[in-house]
């Protein structure tokens, strides 16, 4: 699904990612943890194609194609989805309009016809219910005036409707109360499939109680310093990041 090889990235001539290696197979869930400023969001942004970063070395291949060559919207249409750490407010564009535009772009990209208006509404309302949101949110401007938790839920709603192949969740759990976390986790779990992979960036073991990862990686100072199974997250919670940062130094 995704293969990152020795990826190095600069921002304003400052090296942020210092040789990332990561293999993600279809159906897998990978958690990425790590201290503030270690480069987690940078990695998420690079995968979704945000401008302002310079790739200085390495490669990223997605479903056998060079991901870094693709425009952001092409990546999205090919199935890469980033749930933003800080979703952007778009006044004047309604949620439902954006969902329709996005879904139809994907369909067009795959040579399919525009979605039937009734089918679309049924699909959207289904997912709204799944995420225990109010239908009114559909007709509000994208994220405008949404609370922190509502924005995160809205990201997952989009994900549920667009059915991407590679889902990158950048701290979707931050700022969610326990009930919202459960709802979001349920939403994510309902999307689990043999041909769909997840990268979950998080600071908290809490999320991983609900969505069990196959692998946990620790990103520190722009490098993956430790990888392990789900139990690594528990260990991190107990001992803190300094433990792995130190262990890396000791290697």
């Amino acid at each position, binding site marked *: 699904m995704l293969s990152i090889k020795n990826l190095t990235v600069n921002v304003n001539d400052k090296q942020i990612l210092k040789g990332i290696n990561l293999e993600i197979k279809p159906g897998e869930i990978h958690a990425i943890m790590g201290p503030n400023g270690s480069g987690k969001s940078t990695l998420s942004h690079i995968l979704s194609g945000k401008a302002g970063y310079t790739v200085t070395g390495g490669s990223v291949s997605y479903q056998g194609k060079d991901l870094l060559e693709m*425009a*952001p919207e092409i990546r*999205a249409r090919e199935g890469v*989805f980033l749930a933003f750490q800080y979703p952007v407010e778009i*006044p004047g564009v309604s949620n439902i*309009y954006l969902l329709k535009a996005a879904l139809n*772009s*994907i369909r067009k990209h795959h040579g399919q016809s525009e979605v039937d208006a009734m089918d679309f509404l049924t699909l959207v309302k289904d997912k709204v219910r799944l995420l225990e949101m109010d239908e009114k949110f559909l007709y509000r401007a994208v994220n405008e005036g949404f609370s922190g938790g509502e924005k995160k839920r809205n990201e997952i709603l989009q994900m549920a409707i*667009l059915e991407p192949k590679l889902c990158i969740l950048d701290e979707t759990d931050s700022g969610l109360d326990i009930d919202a976390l459960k709802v979001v986790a349920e939403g994510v779990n309902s999307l689990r499939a043999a041909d769909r992979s997840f990268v979950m960036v998080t600071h908290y073991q809490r999320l991983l109680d609900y969505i069990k990862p196959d692998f946990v990686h620790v990103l520190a100072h722009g490098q993956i310093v430790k990888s392990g199974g789900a139990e690594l997250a528990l260990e991190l919670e107990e001992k803190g990041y300094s433990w792995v940062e130190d262990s890396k130094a000791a290697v």
Partner: protein
Amino acid sequence: MTTAIASRYTAEYSTIAPTLPGQNLAWLTALRQQALTKFSAQGFPSLREEEWRYTNVSAIEKKLFSPSLIGQAQDIVPTDLLASYQLPDAWSVVLIDGHYCAELSVLEGLPATVTVMSIADALAQQPEIVERYINQAVNNDEHSLVAFNTAWFTDGLFVHVPAKVILEKPVQVLHVSTQGDLLASTRTVIVAEDMADIKVIETFVGLDIAYLSAAVTEVFVGLNADVTLYKMQCESDKAYHFCGIYVKQAKDARFTHHNFAFGALLARCDIHTDLDLASECELNGLYLGVNRQHIDNHTRINHLKPHGISRELYKGVLDDRARGVFQGRVIVAEDAQKTDSQMNNRNLLLSNDAEADTKPQLEIYADDVKCAHGVTVGQLDEKSIFYLQSRCVDEETARNMLTFAFANEMVDKIKIKSLHDQALEQVLIRFPQAGINKEWL
């Protein structure tokens, strides 16, 4: 210098004067004469005047626009313009080249107590009541285009709604210009007595020719009355447009204005409102400039008494070499304690050659008030563009969507369906709309 140019207009005046409405009314001829004298002395506004420093009107001085005489032309009915702009769900008064056209106007079914007629008819049928209001909301010290209008107005609209009457349908005054080098000078007076409620739409359109529209509107909002005024300025892109709207709000009165400036080569609009005790006003504006359009909006909110509330939001989208000007003044008199006022002006520049000049001015003489203002001039937000791209939308469409969305916030404030759709169409035709799906909006 200025007077020399003005005198070209005044020289013509004696031939035109006998054709102007209300010639038999001594008070009106005196008023017109006074205005003529003032205009002769001052000429058109100049860049040296603080309120006109961004807007150069010398282009209209080079031409001599003439008021169309009654009976002249009008044989070509601009059916296309009427079809596009005359609102089906409103009473309408149609003014062609500054003259009332009864055949095209729709006034059937008006409540008997309500007056909606051309101001020429009102001056003939009920001059006392017109006299009570005309030139009472606008100050004689205003810029000389007001005097110009007072001297030259050939017709216009008169609306009178008695106390407690709520008019079911809106009233539209449709100004249509069909002749080149024409001066269409019109005066509108709207009176809503205590607790009355009315919505009026002023629409300005014209054929694809150069002409000059000079319109003055006076609005009187009675005790606890409610007036919503819409302005749709869709003039020809060769036209010059000047408009002044002067409002007097009584105690507890509410006034809402939606100012859509889409057309004209050079457009200037002044909106002044005086608020009494606990009155409220809301001024909304959207100006879209393309090519070399110059669009100037000038607002003045005058809080004279305590507990007034004012909300103002003007948005501009400027492309190519267009220039937008916003000057917004809020004055809070010493007596106007507990005033609550917010003014905002946001400009979106789509090209490097486009320009926005914005000048909010707060003059506060009271000490216990809540007044805020903010201005922005900027480009589309790159973060928003990326967000849309990450949701499968290509960059061009994302830009178009964001531009549209920026403008559409103002369009969505329109409560009259047919007018809303008209404004939406205007926004869509003025900017690239590739990727925007109208059916989904």
